[in-house]
């Protein structure tokens, strides 16, 4: 009983916070109210919600939480987070775009990067056309909550035929000395025949309290456009003594138009709780989509990847590869849904989820789901979970490698299939280094 009361308290607090702040938030209040209504109906998901049963966000939200972060960081503090040297860097601090900390000088023609607040204020037609049009507030309570309560984020627009060679690095950095909830939101629109590389990283700095980030990014990919997208989730990495402060619900909602190519990579390296909701809608013919994921979990971590690939039109290809190494008492969940709608003939859709369980106490839940309504399609899914292969370990040891380095080499090899899909060389190196350190 007590659980129910406390959980509803968080819900009530969220609603109260919304009522008192809605008039000060940017944009359309009606949209926000509609979203809040939807959140009110669904509530914070508990174990009875099929989609959240392995990831108990309600339990986590039982504690006291505040809505206004009370810390700011300076240039020096965030220097090391800018690990891509040759990139356009966007800093989103506690859910708010900070121009002063970003590196956005000399943007090339055809590239707009500004805060959501500014995009809305300037009546950008692109913003108006696409903002909050894809992530459905009735589909998920965190989409609803973000849509209702977001304060800011980044708006990126790549104009028709523009090729942006340098990556755009969006750094979400959070800081708090009391438990805080934030709702960063991004809108990325890549127009016809344009190309961009987007890297989103999630970090926490200089904090002593928990941070619950309910981050949402909508990506619109028009005809013939090519987008390469990365998420690097490593929230607890920057904290001393492996403090467990980072809680992240990260929604990525993608719409692709005909002949476009989208590749997305999700690397979850730390974070007490990470829930990814990644949805791709393939709304045109001859679309290509690649979804790659790697999660390395340990301690008491909970990492949950929910993906949806929605094939709506004929002749599209999607390919999904998620791999995980689970250690300690951590729990990893993979839930991959593929829809092939009635119209989507000649679809090729492949999905694979492979896991290595290093400990007795670790848990992996894996659930591939195919829903196929067309009759001329090629679809497959596969999942495997196992320990490190004893025969391989023995072979390596028989050549002089210690048990430890044999295991490390095999974990590295397992992860490399995903890591090698990174096309930005400095990012590849960065992730390699991170993983190497993790296996130490």
């Amino acid at each position, binding site marked *: 009983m007590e659980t129910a009361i406390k959980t509803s308290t968080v819900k009530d607090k969220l609603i109260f916070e919304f009522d008192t702040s809605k008039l000060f938030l940017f944009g359309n209040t009606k949209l926000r109210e509609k979203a809040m209504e939807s959140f009110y109906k669904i509530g914070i998901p508990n174990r009875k919600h099929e989609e959240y049963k392995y990831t108990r966000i309600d339990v986590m939200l039982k504690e006291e939480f505040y809505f206004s972060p009370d810390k700011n960081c300076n240039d020096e503090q965030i220097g090391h987070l800018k690990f891509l040297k040759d990139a356009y860097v966007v800093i989103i601090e506690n859910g708010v775009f900070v121009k002063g900390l970003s590196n956005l000088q000399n943007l090339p023609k055809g590239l707009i990067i500004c805060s959501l607040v500014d995009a809305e204020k300037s009546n950008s037609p692109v913003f108006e056309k696409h903002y909050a049009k894809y992530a459905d507030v009735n589909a998920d309570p965190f989409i609803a909550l973000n849509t209702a309560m977001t304060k800011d984020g980044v708006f990126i627009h790549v104009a028709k035929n523009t090729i942006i060679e340098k990556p755009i690095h969006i750094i979400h950095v959070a800081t708090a000395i009391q438990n805080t909830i934030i709702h960063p939101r991004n809108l990325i629109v890549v127009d016809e025949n344009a190309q961009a590389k987007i890297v989103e990283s999630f970090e926490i700095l200089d904090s002593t309290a928990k941070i619950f980030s309910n981050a949402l990014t909508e990506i619109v990919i028009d005809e013939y456009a090519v987008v390469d997208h990365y998420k690097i989730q490593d929230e607890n990495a920057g904290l001393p003594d492996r403090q467990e402060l980072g809680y992240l619900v990260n929604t990525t909602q993608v719409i692709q138009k005909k002949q476009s190519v989208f590749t997305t990579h999700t690397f979850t390296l730390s974070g007490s709780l990470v829930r990814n909701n990644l949805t791709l809608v393939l709304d045109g013919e001859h679309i290509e989509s690649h979804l790659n994921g790697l999660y390395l979990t340990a301690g008491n971590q909970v990492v949950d990847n929910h993906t949806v690939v929605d094939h709506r039109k004929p002749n599209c290809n999607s390919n999904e590869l998620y791999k995980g190494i689970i250690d300690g008492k951590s729990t990893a969940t993979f839930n991959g849904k593929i829809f092939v709608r009635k119209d989507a003939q000649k679809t090729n859709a492949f999905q694979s989820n492979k896991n290595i369980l290093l400990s007795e106490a670790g848990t992996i839940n894996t659930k591939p789901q195919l829903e196929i309504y067309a009759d001329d399609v090629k679809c497959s899914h596969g999942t495997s979970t196992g320990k490190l292969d004893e025969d391989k370990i023995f*072979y390596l*040891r*028989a*050549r*002089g*490698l210690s048990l430890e380095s044999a295991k490390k080499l095999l974990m590295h*090899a397992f992860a490399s*299939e995903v890591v090698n899909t990174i096309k930005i060389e400095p990012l590849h190196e960065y992730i390699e280094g991170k993983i190497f350190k993790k296996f130490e």
Partner: protein
Amino acid sequence: MISIKNLHASIDGKEILKGINLEIKAGEVHAIMGPNGSGKSTLSAVLAGRSEYEVTEGEVTYNGINLLELSPEDRAREGVFLAFQYPIEIPGVSNVNFLKTAIGEIRAYKGLEPMAAKDFLAMLKEKQKLVELDGKLANRSVNVGFSGGEKKRNEIFQMAMLNPKLAILDETDSGLDIDALRIVANGVNKLKSKDNATIIITHYQRLLDYIIPDFVHVIYNGKIVKSGSKELALELEEKGYDFIKEEIEA
């Protein structure tokens, strides 16, 4: 070099080796032959340190140390090399990286300086030539997509890189065509010296036409039942293993 005394070993409670005795000196080549299921591969697995096999009796002294007490990696670092009958495929681990790590750890164990990258590469090239291994294979994942012959050559290539004191070739000839067999045998012969020893485990005599053994032992039902010179191998080939069985049972 190695002295095996009254070695008994079992797996899942079933005794496979029932008292093996064998003395091997530096510079010697010993062939161990025997019918399937006689315990040949078990002997190699026990010497390399596979944990599934339990040694229930006996001892193995290798250059003055109790080999059975060492971990598999320490056996390798002390110079014991097993060429696997079925080399393992390891996707994602390149041959070169694997050997670099192995050599690094072996040298660290011996208290030697790490090998310079230049020297490592030079050695890599030289040893590849020895077994006529395509340079491209060295950069590929360990044994992945290799033909049977390439896998066996890769074993001998690794042996050449690690330069062991005691090499155990477990049915290295099985599944090899005659050309590959010659290449592998040639590699082994070139690696032979007065300081190292070789154990060749084989079912057939053919490999012994190319690598001439000093001694031939016949293992049957977990014991060495007959030892002799290389002529014994020819006799076995001619008469088959049945004559051994008859001799024993007589």
